[in-house]
């Protein structure tokens, strides 16, 4: 076992620290008692001073030992800063209190009470900070009733949930987008109480029923619907809607049109269908900050985060590790040496679900080693260029179903590999420059599998 006298002593801090707390609270209690009994014959001043004296000494000890503990590192630096300095402040205040009580410093009597009061408050503060350092900041409130949590998080102020708080998969077109448009631009006239033109636009039912002139929507030809017609007339036209206030924006009209075309169902979600075209994606992003761009694989697959030990092991074995952003636990790995060992390869399996991009270019990777790679099932991008890989190796990675980009440039593979490679259903880019694969074979491949673009000499 390793020995470290500093850490050993430091770990007594949580124990020692209760001594000054006890002494100082005791001093306050004695003072309270002295005020209450008002017995002139019983003078507690000496006792209080004595308690403060030991409180000062004990807190000094706690500070020294706490400082030793902090040398070990690993604490939140901000919390530690406050804990340390408020602790020091408590010690100084109790020393000051002792000086006052023993009349080494003569000041008004009320000063002592103020000092004592601050000692108590600051003990509470630094004690809480110390607890947060050891147990984590959420320790205290983790099991608190929700109303307390709400106060702490300030969540009770946010009654209106913005669209950004909802997962894009859960956004329903009518209640989340269409109804708010109607609410802000139409219902001041078309409500149940006003009902102009016999039209109620406060809910889906009213919108579908229409008004005096019949249905205002048209699922087959939305542009011919009364709704779209009235909001797109020239501004000067008497029938233009809304007659007062802001007109509907281009984006709003586009969404109305799109929604009608999609069936005008009240439960339709943007994520339900494949009908979101690039234009709609753009409008939703621009006007509502909703991201409906097709999600890449690494954002769709949910995997647990790799442990810090795994991260360390990978880095120690000369793998560069990048996370795929905050929204994903997937990782991207680049090997940094010129030659890779079997042991290093085996370390990759520690993160076999998380690795989605893997760069093992020019590291003397063998067919045998490539077999191990076949276990990394969430791999979407594999770069094994400039390695002594043959068709054998390519065969062994067929289990990798999600590969979208494969770089085998400058390897020994030949035309034999092409039929095997086409089994990777997700494959889009294939880098085959400086291999045995011939131009005619590539041409044939792109004819049969137009989705795969093979990149060779440019």
């Amino acid at each position, binding site marked *: 076992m390793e020995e470290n006298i500093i850490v050993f002593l430091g770990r007594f801090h949580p124990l020692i620290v209760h001594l000054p707390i006890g002494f100082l609270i005791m001093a306050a209690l004695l003072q309270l008692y002295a005020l209450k009994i008002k017995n002139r014959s019983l003078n507690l001043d000496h006792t209080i001073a004595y308690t403060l004296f030991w409180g000062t000494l004990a807190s000094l000890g706690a500070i020294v030992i706490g400082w030793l503990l902090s040398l070990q590192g690993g604490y939140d*630096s*901000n*919390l530690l*800063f*406050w804990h340390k*300095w*408020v602790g020091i402040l408590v010690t100084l205040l109790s020393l000051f209190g002792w000086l006052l009580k023993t009349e080494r410093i003569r000041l008004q009597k009320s000063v002592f009470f103020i000092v004592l009061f601050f000692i108590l*408050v600051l003990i*509470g*503060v630094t004690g*809480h*900070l110390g607890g*947060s350092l050891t147990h984590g*900041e959420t320790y205290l*409130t983790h099991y608190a009733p929700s109303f307390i949590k709400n106060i*702490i998080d*300030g969540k009770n102020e946010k009654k209106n949930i913005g669209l950004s708080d909802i997962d894009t998969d859960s956004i329903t077109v009518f209640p989340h987008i269409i109804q708010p448009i109607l609410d802000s631009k139409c219902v001041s006239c078309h409500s149940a109480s006003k009902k102009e033109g016999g039209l109620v636009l406060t809910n889906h039912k009213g919108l579908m029923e229409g008004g005096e002139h019949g249905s205002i929507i048209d699922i087959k030809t939305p542009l011919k619907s009364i709704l779209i017609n009235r909001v797109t007339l020239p501004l000067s036209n008497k029938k233009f809607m809304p007659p007062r206030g802001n007109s509907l924006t281009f984006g709003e009209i586009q969404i109305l049109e799109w929604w009608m075309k999609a069936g005008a169902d009240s439960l339709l979600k943007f994520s339900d269908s494949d009908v979101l075209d690039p234009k709609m994606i*753009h409008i939703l*992003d621009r006007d509502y900050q909703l991201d409906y761009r097709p999600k*890449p694989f*690494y*954002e769709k697959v949910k995997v647990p985060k790799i442990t810090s030990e795994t991260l360390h092991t990978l880095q120690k074995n000369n793998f*560069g*590790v*990048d*996370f*795929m*952003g*905050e*929204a*994903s636990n997937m990782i*991207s790995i*680049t090997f*940094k040496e010129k030659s890779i060992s079997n042991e290093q390869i085996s370390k990759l399996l520690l993160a076999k679900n998380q690795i989605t991009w893997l760069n093992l270019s020019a590291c003397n990777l063998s067919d045998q080693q490539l077999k191990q790679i076949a276990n990394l099932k969430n791999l979407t*991008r594999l*770069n094994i*260029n400039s390695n002594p890989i043959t068709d054998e190796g390519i065969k062994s990675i067929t289990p990798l179903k999600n590969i979208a*980009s494969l*770089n085998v*440039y400058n390897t020994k593979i030949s035309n034999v590999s092409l039929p095997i490679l086409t089994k990777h259903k997700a494959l889009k*880019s294939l*880098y085959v*420059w400086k291999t045995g694969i011939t131009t005619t074979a590539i041409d044939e491949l792109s004819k049969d599998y137009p989705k795969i673009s093979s*990149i*060779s*000499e*440019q």
Partner: protein
Amino acid sequence: MCNHHNPNYTRRDFLTKTTLGLGALSLSSLMNASTLVDTKGAPLVGKTHFPPKVKRVIYLFQSGGPSQLDLFDHKPLLTKLNGQELPESIRKGQRLTGMTAGQSSFPLAGSIFQFKQHGKSGAWVSDRMPHVAGISDELCFIKSMHTDAINHDPAVTFMQTGSQFSGRPSIGSWVSYGLGSDNENLPNFVVLVTKNKRGQPLYSRLWGNGFLPSEHQGTQFRAGKDPVLFLQNPPGVTAESRRNQLDHLNQLQQLQYDTLEDPEIKARMSQYEMAFRMQTSVPEIMDTEGEPEHIYDMYGPDSKIPGTYAANCLLARRLVEKDVKFIQLYHQGWDHHGGLPNGLREQCKETDQPTAALIKDLKQRGLLEDTLVIWGGEFGRTNYSQGALSATNYGRDHHPKCFTLFMAGAGIKKGIVHGATDEFGYNIVENPVHVHDFQATLMHLMGVDHERLTYKHQGRRFRLTDVSGHVVKDILS
């Protein structure tokens, strides 16, 4: 006299924290204190905000302001109205440089070069850039770039650092600081400048680290015997004795650091170590003799002459292969106030083929999957002629209101044209992209939220995009 101070933890830090924080102290720890008193924006090594689609950048900086009107922004109307006055309805009193502000006439100048549409995207490229035209389906043209500066130095500084005033870190330095290194044997940020070019001067502060720790400044690799100045051991000093010397020096530095805790000492130590490793890694990179003949053919005849743009493009590819994060090339000489046709011919001859070759070479190696190549200058050029306009000759003044830049590679759409200018090629009419927007997009592609990568200096948190910048989502793939 007391010269001792602790730069890691200043008196100012202490006082700010205690005076500002003490009042709100008791609640602050409950209510997430980190938002209240933030410390220096920490680097994100390995933990980017977004997926790092781009892992390396090659920025081909065309210094001087290439004429977009003669290369990519095809304006037939200018040819039609050649020699007629620039209408005031277009210029709208916009400020001009002192070089043409006094001109009594502003004759519109159509390009004398022939334009054609290329590739599936139908991008317009002039006949001066045949090789680039040939790869137009790989490229994303932004025709609606605009900048705040009207003169070279502030404009280049703006493009490189996000501020017209000197002293801020260059993009490459931000990237190095924020994302760390992928190759411990080479600098993270390498600068290559075309040799023997005349034109607007370039200063090393353009690739400077500003207030960031100094190991993040760009390292210039020069052509010739000494690629990095003062890197090689002097005659008679062996690698072993250098190692021995460095070890002892490090011990001394560490002692000094223990007393002063000045982070610059650490920076210096890491740079000494880097220099030692570079003594072997740099000659390896610079020695292009092993490159096959067909690669030289691709980059063009200049590629065998060290220090040319072509040779630098080839070097850039070699650096990218070694995982250098940010490579900045500079090619001067695009400042064609007069004699534009001939000047442009010369510039294009030097740059067209190597630029296209670099992109193709990266593509065939699969490197375009995670490398971004950027081509562009600091501003555009005017649609009217500076000086006399003749059938074969004209010049163009600086024009900050629109210019063209193109990119190729990871994370962006291929074969698209983003943004548009009016028929006169003077104002932007569609999707303007400000320099800060471009920088924000670049950072986004590298996985960084440009608003969150900050560095506190002199009491203020600085970022590359200053106080603005929006990611251009339309060009992201």
